């Protein structure tokens, strides 16, 4: 997952996951929650896409939509989600079920509540293996599960197999989750803030582990995170979300070093630096995230944007579309002109601080 990759010609490898114009809405008593609004992205095998954005920006909703885990009765989905070339939007439960855990697997944020408290970790992994290998015997499934537990760095996996989740530490539990997600060698792994609950050392170990497993199985990874430090460590590509929309996307180089969107600038400016001046001020983005029921008109970010006044009023009336930001594959949704952004960025962030 480290950025310099020995890469097959990107033009030739097809994306394993291609999301096109994904929209997710929930009908609730308070109104329609527009959680995801026309987001597109793709991930190729062996690559990692990091999705960043504040709390409530629709990151989890988008990833759950890929696995089809929303309650279909209260959720309206549109757009296309191609997983291995197959569109999973509108696929019925039976069909999508055969893909879950095998074509695409998911790691959840809090491994304690995401594992069943009443079953041993071994049993839970075996269960995940056997749904997709119905002919596998108990002994064979156990062998696979133990091997996987060992592979994710759990000491004495044979004995830990029979332990319950509450008998593991947070980091070990997350390894169990990873083992469970990877036991069928899925082509796509979605990790929703897999390290947020862990301390920094353990977090680094888990990220290394994911990188190892990725290069072993050539997995496409979507990693959701709040932490730009994590992004700089593991991402190949970055998607920045705000108010359920993609506001900027590109390679990790482009987004972290040459960010184009004022919101991305804000995110970067609020990251503590490791190398820079320890006394330098952290500037959190002022204001609070928008309501997903009543999104601000025009650019959803305009109430918090310092440059909203420099768009001749368009920021409050017109939703900015994603458009090329100068370099290939680098997209930004902002009304400011390229020249304006280039000028303003100088004052906003020193991007090398993070990357």
């Amino acid at each position, binding site marked *: 997952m480290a950025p310099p990759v020995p890469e097959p010609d990107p033009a030739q490898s097809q994306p394993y996951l291609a999301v096109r114009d994904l929209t997710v809405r929930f009908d609730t008593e308070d109104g329609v929650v527009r959680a995801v609004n026309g987001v597109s992205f793709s991930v190729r095998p062996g690559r990692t896409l990091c999705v960043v954005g504040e709390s409530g920006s629709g990151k989890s909703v988008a990833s759950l939509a890929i696995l089809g885990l929303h309650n279909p009765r209260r959720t309206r989905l549109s757009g296309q989600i191609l997983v291995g070339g197959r569109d999973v939007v509108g696929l019925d439960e039976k069909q999508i079920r055969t893909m879950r855990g095998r074509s695409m697997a998911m790691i959840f944020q*809090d491994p304690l509540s995401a594992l069943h408290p009443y079953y041993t970790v071994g049993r839970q992994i075996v269960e995940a293996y056997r749904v997709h290998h119905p002919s596998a015997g108990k002994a064979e499934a156990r062998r696979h599960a133990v091997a996987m537990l060992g592979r994710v760095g759990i000491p004495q996996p044979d004995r830990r197999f029979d332990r319950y989740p509450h008998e593991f530490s947070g980091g070990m539990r997350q390894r169990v989750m990873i083992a469970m997600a990877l036991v069928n060698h899925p082509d796509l792994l979605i990790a929703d803030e897999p390290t947020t609950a862990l301390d920094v050392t353990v977090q680094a170990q888990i990220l290394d582990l994911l990188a190892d497993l990725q290069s072993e199985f050539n997995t496409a990874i979507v990693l959701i995170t709040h932490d730009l430090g994590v992004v700089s460590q593991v991402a190949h590509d970055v998607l920045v979300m705000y108010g359920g929309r993609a506001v900027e996307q590109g390679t990790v180089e482009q987004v972290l070093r040459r960010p184009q969107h004022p919101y991305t600038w804000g995110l970067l400016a609020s990251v503590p630096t490791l190398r820079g001046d320890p006394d330098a001020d952290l500037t959190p983005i002022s204001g609070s995230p928008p309501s997903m029921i009543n999104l601000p008109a025009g650019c959803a970010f305009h109430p918090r944007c310092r440059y909203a006044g420099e768009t001749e009023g368009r920021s409050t009336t017109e939703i900015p579309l994603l458009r090329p930001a100068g370099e290939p594959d680098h997209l930004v949704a902002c009304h400011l002109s390229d020249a304006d952004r280039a000028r303003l960025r100088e004052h906003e962030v020193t991007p090398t601080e993070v990357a």
Partner: protein
Amino acid sequence: MLRFLTRRLLSAVLVLFAVSVLSFLMFFALPRDPVTAMCPKNCNPARLERVRQELGLSDPLYQQYVGYMKGIFVGRDLSSALGGHCDAPCLGYSYVNSEPVTRTITRVLPVTLSIVLPAAVLWLALGVGLGMISALRRGTLLDRLAIGFSLAGASLQLYFVGAVLLLVFCYTLHVVPVPHYTSIWSNPLDWADGLVLPWVTLAFLFSAIYARLSRAQMLETLSEDFVRTARAKGLSKSTVYGRHALRAAITPIVTIAGMDVGAALGGTVVTETTFGLQGLGRTVWDAVREGDLPTLMATVLIAAVFVVVANILVDVLYAFIDPRVRLR
């Protein structure tokens, strides 16, 4: 596990000891003379004195208590007028019923057990089943019907439901006989036939409560992260619901069911009265009305034993279901 059981049994013994001492004190140390309290209406002084003698009521209180407890564990000798030796478990002699209390209890306890245990199986199966189905079919017609059913059950009174069922099925349609008790060992069919109305009544009322409880539990469990994980693994719906959600949702229900059954075994006064069955509940009721202290004392102890045993069973069961609970 063994250590847990020993500890729980010890504390159970302590609780029962405390209950026995307290109830003994209450019944026998009241300012009211227990003999008068026990004596049927026409009591002349001579008879009173004889009763006092026969019951050893002039002995110091602790001696009476020891005598009573000894009777329970090893038996004791009562005066010859009361039948002489009384085998363990001897619970004393009731002047009101003119027989040893143990004999009354062995007669009425099977009645209560026969009412409560099958009814409990029914109400749990029905209640939990209904609750689960309506949680899984949330918002559908079925769910609304189930909610209506639980509301009806929760707002109706036992004697009312019992009376209506009696009137309709027994006295009008004649599909069931008048409720009565036959021993299951002598005639199982007649046993079931005679008790089916109380079972249905109890099951209806209790399953209403359990349906609501299980529905709420199941809905809560379905929103848990581990259920989402189970779905993300690609498990079938039945596995997700059956193996993952149900198991977690059922845990608190086990606790409440244990308590309910334990308490019901101590006597179902209203049920027994409604259907004219002479079980433990009716016996308690009669004993209260007639001031039959030895019988009352015995029923209090028995009810306490049921509750304590139900508690231990629930704890053990809980530990089997939830590995995080340690039996220590």
